[in-house]
């Protein structure tokens, strides 16, 4: 994760940062504010303008603010034995598009769960890479995505009609 972004690619960098911030906040206004705050911090420190620094700065500022607001809920994590299989559910059939409930389902996730899901599904990082980026154990990352999976599945299972012979997330 050491892409060096040329000036012409700053716009794409910022848009990626916005989407990542949105995975944390699940609120576009807050995501824009978080991005601005992080960007100013990066510029002030003279940090390299690439995705690694931007994501790290966004993450640090988000969770630091959440801690100050005492909004970080502590939930026990489940043990996950196989980290590599933790993301396999992402490539199973999904019915969110036809149901139009993905936005609400994502709202149900904790920021850390949504973040892990975003980094895996949208940015394409592995569990190990996410663990390195977020400075968490691989087991923690795996547990987060699995919890996200269960919560999303509850949205699908509650509303959609049963389909025979169909594997779903």
């Amino acid at each position, binding site marked *: 994760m050491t892409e060096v972004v040329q000036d012409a690619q700053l716009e794409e960098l910022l848009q990626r940062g916005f989407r990542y911030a949105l995975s944390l906040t699940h609120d576009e206004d807050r995501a824009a504010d978080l991005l601005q705050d992080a960007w100013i911090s990066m510029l002030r420190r003279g940090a390299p303008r690439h995705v690694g620094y931007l994501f790290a700065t966004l993450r640090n500022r988000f969770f630091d603010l959440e801690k100050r607001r005492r909004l970080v809920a502590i939930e026990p994590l489940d043990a996950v034995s196989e980290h590599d299989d933790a993301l396999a559910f992402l490539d199973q059939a*999904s019915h969110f598009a036809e149901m139009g409930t993905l936005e609400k389902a994502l709202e149900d996730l904790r920021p850390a769960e949504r973040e892990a899901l975003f980094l895996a599904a949208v940015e394409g990082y592995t569990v190990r890479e996410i663990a390195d980026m977020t400075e968490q154990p691989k087991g923690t990352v795996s547990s987060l995505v699995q919890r996200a999976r269960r919560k999303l599945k509850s949205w699908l299972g509650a509303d959609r009609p049963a389909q025979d012979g169909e594997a779903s997330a």
Partner: protein
Amino acid sequence: MKPSRQPTLRDDLRRHYGKKKLEDARLSQLLAMADVVEEPTPSSTDSEPAEDLRPSGGVGQRVWMAVLASAALVALLVVPWMRSSWQSQVSTEQLASRVAEEIAMNHSKGLDVEYATGDLAELRRHMHKLDFALVDSQRLREQGLTLVGGRYCSIQGRLAAQLSLQTADGDAVTLYQTALIDDLAGLPEHPEGTRGLRIELWNEEGVFFGLARSP
């Protein structure tokens, strides 16, 4: 005809987030900031700066001069196309309303200061991107406001500084300063549409001031 593949959760998530975009105005602001800041050099660490002036929890010293100076908002420069855009499309009243709205929004966020101090000289040392002399506002000198600290922010695409103050009753007041440019000169002092806050805009000694407080 072969039926299309059932979308996966990965597909749905990518489509969902792929549609989300930072609005053009905010993107322009961030890009403009990058234009005015020196080209970054590789950093050996991505940690926050060594100095840590996090708020201690108490109110700063009762030094109004220090507050004004340290909180100084720096409008370093405006991207030329943005400047010409303002001049050709935005009236004075519209610009004042936009500036007031932005000040009110930033005030309402209640963001923590980056540098907690009541001393002007100390804050000036830390906010070293200032490119103009801070002004001790005659207008505010006798209001007995206390400095809490300051942070960088932006006003209409310009890198700016935001000062957090408190009244004697403990009410929050937010002050912005920026170098006065033509577009900001002559704005109405009490613009409309400010989220129920009291917003004041004025100029003193080559500096543009914006103040936000509860009515």
